[in-house]
């Protein structure tokens, strides 16, 4: 239990190349851990906006909305997984959808581990020291990107160049999905409007 849920994720973020392979071949990854990481990332984002120190917190407290926070993390997460799956299936990637979700979820762990103490520490910082806050936050972000990169490479058994290409393609496909989604939504709305207008015409003509 402890082995799979705590020790392995922690081992993974420091030894990603070995651990992602273990995750794939030995079936060490747990979906529960991936989703917990996602949930905790969302929590950290909300906590950071609400509780980060005054000197680093430029958020208007009236604009914080947890639902939107959830959406801004969770939607890209699942979009990424879907788009990546779509791209890699065509590009001979070996990863299954489950493995993509696992790799993406596990990559988020450093974000949680860095954000949590930084939120506390930022409350005791003065202006000159806020540089460290921004530094560590960027480290968390680049760590996440690096893990995601290694994760994708290992899960799909790609070369470096191929991984980069697929990741860029994934981003493009994410954009396309969003565009198509908006298009379909708008079309449905217009269709509804059309139907409703016909209904109204009929009602008033009789």
């Amino acid at each position, binding site marked *: 239990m402890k082995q799979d849920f705590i020790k392995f994720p922690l081992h993974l973020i420091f030894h990603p190349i070995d651990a992602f392979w273990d995750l794939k071949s030995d079936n060490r990854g747990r979906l529960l851990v991936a989703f917990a990481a996602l949930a905790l990332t969302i929590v950290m984002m909300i906590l950071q906006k609400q509780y980060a120190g*005054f*000197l680093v917190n430029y958020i*208007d407290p009236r604009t914080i909305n947890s639902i939107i926070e959830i959406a801004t993390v969770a939607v890209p997460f699942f979009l990424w997984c879907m788009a990546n799956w779509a791209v890699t299936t065509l590009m001979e990637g070996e990863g299954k959808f489950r493995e993509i979700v696992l790799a993406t979820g596990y990559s988020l762990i450093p974000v949680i581990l860095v954000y949590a103490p930084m939120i506390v520490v930022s409350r*005791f910082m*003065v*202006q*000159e020291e806020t540089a460290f806050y921004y530094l560590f936050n960027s480290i968390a972000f680049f760590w996440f990107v690096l893990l995601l990169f290694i994760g994708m490479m290992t899960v799909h058994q790609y070369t470096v160049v191929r991984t980069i290409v697929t990741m860029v393609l994934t981003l493009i496909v994410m954009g396309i999905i969003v565009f198509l989604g908006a298009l379909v939504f708008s079309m449905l709305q217009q269709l509804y409007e059309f139907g409703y207008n016909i209904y109204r015409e009929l009602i008033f003509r009789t």
Partner: protein
Amino acid sequence: MARTVKRWLVLLAAVSLLLVNAVPAAASPAPYESYNYNYWKEAVPSPDAYLPERTISGRDLGISEFKDPGDVNVSPSGLIYILDSGNNRIIVLDPGFKLLSVIDGFMMEGSKETFNLPGGLFVDEEERIYVADTGNGRVVVLDGEGTLIQTITKPESDILSTQFQFQPLKLTVDHVGRVYVVAQGVYEGIMQFDESGKFIGYVGTNKVERDYGEYIWRMLSTKAQRAQMVLFVPTEFSNADIDHKGFVYATNIDPGSNEPIKRLNPSGEDVLKRFGYYDVKGDIRFRNNPGPSKLIDVKVLGDGMYSVLDATQNRVFTYDDEGHLLYMYGGKGNQVGTLKTPVAIEQSGEHHLVLDRGKNNLVVYEPTRFGARVNEAVALHYRGEDTEAVNIWREVLKLNANYDIAYIGIGKSLLMEKKNEEALGYFELGMDRKSYSVAFKRHRREMMKEHFGTFLTAVIALIVILILTRVAVKWRRRRQVDREAGFH
């Protein structure tokens, strides 16, 4: 029974109706809505700082109506000079707004001279009247009685072209007699003349705002097309005023500029402090408005404060020396207090005067309790008497709890008194991160000094406990091994 109840209900309704009429609705007596911008750049309603008290027209003074008045100035001794441009005369009022005299011309070389559509005037400490006689292309200097002292005509200088037309619009004079003239069609800056009327040079050129889109477009077009395009020239100044240190405050009406107000030091550099949350440029948000503020006049009020007059929305904005917007008043309209075509702003004692060309009158504004308290507190802060300012800031906060500058003011005073922890709260309310950081640094150091002993004790105790547990664990493990080996 039911009837009595009904009757009582009817009576109650009637009484309540009467009562509603008896109590007047508490409304702002000002014909405009006052507001101030908060940290998030939202216009938050604010109490009125100035209220219109009265208007003064030509008929009120017993003379013919004003015609397109152009400028108003209050001399250091308190006399009010109104430049009635359309009637080519100067009207002098005493501080109580009673008519003293009318100057409609002067004697020059034995003949009577008059003004021709003069644009601006200024009165110095010795009651000398400087008039920018625009139509005649000269600056006329008169003494208090209206006798000519000298005229400043078109300057002879190598840096001026021969076709140059000298048309002074507005002017201001420093305490050694140097004249600063804002002239029509002069993009080089404010023209500076010495006390004998000799042209010295320009001060404070407005920078050209570079528009890169336009720049690329220009590169792509042909010579003929380029010739038809607008030139990139610096904007002209619209008005100038001078503070007691001899720094010239100047406004320009460039709509795209974020620095329409300048404070020019003697070498012509802009040294205006802009430490507020946003640019010093009048309105910073305009959704339904015609656009950014067009600042046409500036008045230095003393103690670092200055007011600017916006011709887009006909409002007056007042700032302190650090560039915080203190309050605004005025607006478009036809009531007393709203303005049609304001042209100049002045200060007479506590009152503010705004000259309205559209209505041909002078509007006198009087500070409210809120406005007076703000002025007082800002003045005390400017003079460094922050401790005295605190009580007034607290009163200001009772009148307007959204007044961020007051929070910062109280915070700074607390900081001075080394009450760092209390100051933190005020700085947070005023969203002043810089001062907050200073206060927090001190507070943190104090806390560390105070609790360092406790902290160290705790750390040592923790280390000891850690070592002991480790020893204990080791010992127990060894016992276990020993037992398995059968030693016990």
